[in-house]
């Protein structure tokens, strides 16, 4: 209980929660991608994908690919994490109040856990659609046959995919929010017993 007492400034403020909230605020305000894929050589891009739950940018041969629903899904994810960060911050500052317990959201962890799974499913669908393998991480060569004007054109594109540091920051924020919830439960137990003890 000593560690919890220290991390909560004598059961008054959840310090880990403050860190978690700040990391979540950073994550939600950043437009940098969590995952990036680029196809092409020598600084030229045949295609590129820059994806995070808050922003999705796809380009093929220098032209954007747009899906109307995506900006709205991005906005929903941004609002959810913004809400989680705000409630964690408020709950952490009011840690001594028993009603602050439901404010400790786990959404900050859920998103970075679901993100690679969503990418994997998306890449599997895209790979089966184009008939070539797109990597989740690392480098590969995409070999592809294009039928154009009755001609068969065989192409080779170097592909590079990487999870960016923004993703790892988001995951760290999520892990912090899980610890925050655990510590908050301990603080709540302590507060409850103090109230019962009079």
């Amino acid at each position, binding site marked *: 209980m000593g560690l919890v007492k220290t991390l909560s400034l004598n059961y008054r403020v959840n310090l880990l929660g403050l860190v978690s909230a700040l990391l979540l605020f950073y994550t939600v305000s950043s437009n940098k991608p969590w995952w990036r894929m680029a*196809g*092409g*050589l*020598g*600084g*030229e*891009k*045949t295609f590129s994908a820059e994806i995070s739950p808050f922003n999705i940018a796809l380009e*093929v*041969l*220098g*032209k*954007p*690919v*747009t*899906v*109307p*629903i995506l900006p*709205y*899904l991005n*906005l*929903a994810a941004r*609002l*959810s994490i*913004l*809400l989680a960060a705000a*409630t964690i911050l408020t709950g952490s500052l009011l840690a001594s*109040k*028993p*009603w*602050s*317990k*439901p*404010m400790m*959201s786990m*959404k900050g962890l859920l998103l970075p856990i679901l993100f690679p799974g969503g990418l994997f499913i998306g890449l599997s669908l895209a790979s089966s659609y184009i008939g070539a393998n797109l990597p989740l991480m690392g480098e590969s060569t995409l070999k592809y046959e*294009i039928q*154009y004007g009755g*001609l*068969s*054109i*065989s*192409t*080779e*594109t*170097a592909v590079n995919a990487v999870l960016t540091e923004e993703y790892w920051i988001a995951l760290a924020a999520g892990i912090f929010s899980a610890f925050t919830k655990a510590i908050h439960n301990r603080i709540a137990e302590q507060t409850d017993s103090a109230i019962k003890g009079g």
Partner: protein
Amino acid sequence: MNKTGFVKALMLLLSVAASFAPVIYALNKYEWNIQAMVMPSYSPPKVDFRLEHSGVKFEGGQLYVAFKLVNLGEVDVTFENVNAAAYAPDEEALAPVILDKPVTSHSNSAEALILKISINEASLNKLLQYFEKQDRINVGIRGEASISVFGTKARVPVSAVFEISLTDIVRTMS
């Protein structure tokens, strides 16, 4: 309802609103046409190349065939290599054809693309036989070009025809 219950209910309400309000707004905006919302839209760049024969030159046992490569599209292309063959009017293969030097064709511009046909004594004699019957003959070039577009390497079938006369060869040799 106690305070904890109230906060729980409020949190649930806010979470549901944050998650679903933008999607419901989008559905409303697209008049609940889900297909229109999930269909990707993409306008590929215009690709339009024209190859116009612009001259021949015979030099050092090589026949240089110049083309004007006109790029009317939106895509820059680098022709890195050509692996083709020249064919006589009766479809007999005359000689191998390669690209003299790599050419980058920029959007809305014209570049000179020169193909080098390696003529040896046998193929020269074969060529001269056709001129015994006619003044001018059509020589076809067919094969593959290695190109680079937006960082992708591609092998594209190429086909071109040019007209050549004995006078053209003699003039460039003198």
